[in-house]
């Protein structure tokens, strides 16, 4: 995977380059908006990491211009600007994810990998949590390589959990992701669905488990 790193802080850029190389990325590193523009126009990258505050301009302007020219690769914004307004602006102007400094290398790598397996990518990707794998192209699930048949809704719910493994999903959030406004929704529909999915995963010997945090939500986590 070829990655363009746009970061002007020399030390942070060096550390990022080393960390990302160790994670298997091929890195091109630039320090300015103009260098980044030149690089994007001559090379083909799979993904970019973009700092917003650059010596010769704002990273967001660069992103907006490049998106207007048809730049399609995922871009992760890496910045110190943490207000909600900044975050929303970043995502609206073409950022695919927004990581706040300081960050852990492991989290950055995980987010980059998550961006690379977005369903809108041409090739399907495997999302893996523990011994459970979900193929986003042919919509199949395996547990320890053995196929696990799931209904359309169960598979949707599992995908939601696997894309956000380690994060808590509130019931609102699940309802909004799985059901449209027109769907007649029983008040306990989500619970029933969760119960069925949980039983099927346990039955198949899956290593991650769906935990319930009463009153808060649910999360899929590797049993420790």
């Amino acid at each position, binding site marked *: 995977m070829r990655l363009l790193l746009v970061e002007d802080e020399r030390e942070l850029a060096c550390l990022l380059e080393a960390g990302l190389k160790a994670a298997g990325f091929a890195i091109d590193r630039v320090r300015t908006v103009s260098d980044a523009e030149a690089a994007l126009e001559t090379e083909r990258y799979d993904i970019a990491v973009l700092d917003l505050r650059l010596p010769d301009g704002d990273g967001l302007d660069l992103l907006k211009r490049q998106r207007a020219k048809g730049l399609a690769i995922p871009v992760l914004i890496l910045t110190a600007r*943490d207000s909600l307004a900044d975050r929303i602006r970043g995502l609206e102007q073409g950022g695919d994810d927004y990581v706040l400094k300081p960050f852990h290398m492991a989290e950055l790598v995980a987010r980059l990998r998550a961006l690379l397996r977005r369903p809108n990518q041409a090739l399907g990707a495997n999302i893996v949590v523990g011994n459970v794998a979900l193929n986003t192209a042919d919509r199949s699930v395996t547990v320890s390589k053995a196929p696990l048949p799931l209904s359309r809704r169960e598979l949707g719910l599992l995908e939601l959990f696997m894309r956000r493994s380690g994060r808590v999903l509130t019931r609102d959030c699940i309802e909004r992701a799985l059901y449209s406004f027109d769907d007649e929704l029983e008040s306990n529909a989500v619970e029933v669905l969760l119960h069925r999915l949980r039983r099927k995963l346990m039955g198949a010997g899956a290593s991650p488990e769906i935990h319930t945090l009463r009153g808060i939500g649910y999360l899929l986590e590797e049993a420790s």
Partner: protein
Amino acid sequence: MLGPPAVFMLFSLWTVGSMHDRALQDQAADIVRNLDTRVEPPVLSLPVVLADAYMHSHDSYFYIVLERDGTVVTASSPTAASLAARAMAARPGEFFLIPHKGGEPWYVYSTTYDGFRIVVGQDSMHEDVLFDSIIREVAVLMLWLALPLLLVTWIVMMHTLNRAFSPIARAADEARTITPGGAEGQISSHGLPREITPLVKAVNAALARLERAYDVERRFTTDAAHELRTPVAVLTARIDMLPEGPAKESLAQDTARLSRSVSQLLQVARLDAKPLAMDEDIDLARVVRHAVALLAPLAMQEGRRMEMTAPNRPVMIRGNAQAIALAVTNLVENALAHTPAGTPIDVQVTSEPAICVLDRGQGVPADERMAIFERFQRSPNTASSGTGLGLAIVAEIAARHHAVASVEPRAGGGSIFAIRWVNPA
């Protein structure tokens, strides 16, 4: 413009003249009324009050009663009697003046009654007094004349003032919408009276200066965010590259704490720099649930049970959802930092409305419960990490929502940190 005063003057003068005459005629009538001509010679028996008045008038009032041939029958005083000859020179019914040595001339009137000549006079000095009474009389008349005029003036004035002030009311409306960092931040002087334009310009200049100062403040917080976070990011990345071991773990904890301090300092700076937009209708249960959901994995990693209870109905307040989420985050982070791993943390939203974060830690001593919400105040009894800013931010956000942040002991051990809306609007 000169019309009404001129009319007033003429009217007054005429009235003064005529009143003076009338007074003399009245005076003569008084004498006639009390003159008994059936006896010879005729007897004047004035009422005591009137007789007294003539006696003490020092000749400023006088009367003379004369025979047809000019013989004095009776007079108010010897001085009056001495004027008999002059008085007889005038025809009855005439008003005339008799000079008075060392004083204003007398204004005199004579009439005949039953063959006798009655002469009365008074010092013309008394015109002053008369004039006063006339003014009073005229004033009442003028009031009736003036009332409709005043009414018309008032209506015209109100209309004019209204027209003059409506642009000012509009300017006031504009001023009311100005907030720091808002889009316009200026009052337009269009349509305002010319006299007010310099004031509006001065206010606009002052607003522009404030806006610049606010901009500097805001730029400071974004610059500070960058300047503080970048070195922490370098540090974090460097530590991430270290081989696993106890040293790496404690360094990671130190940088996490540093990172939290930086975040909270920036939160405080941002809260101080800008008033919160308080215009959202918020379901507390929903906002709190989302904030708690983000922190729940951290709690699980520490082996804590975390639960939340809330009413089935939405708990609505008006305010700023992001700020409420920040306050809840700080309360839960505070519980995570100050209570032992493995102990539960419960979050409650009640319809009071209130947000409560309940822990099973060692509790907060009674004498520290107020101070704990002040900046850079930390319990001396806790050795654990914390910046002393998290709870101050909670208190500040609560106050901006007209709510109160507090800590109370929890039955069975631990603390209840609460944000309560005491008088929900």
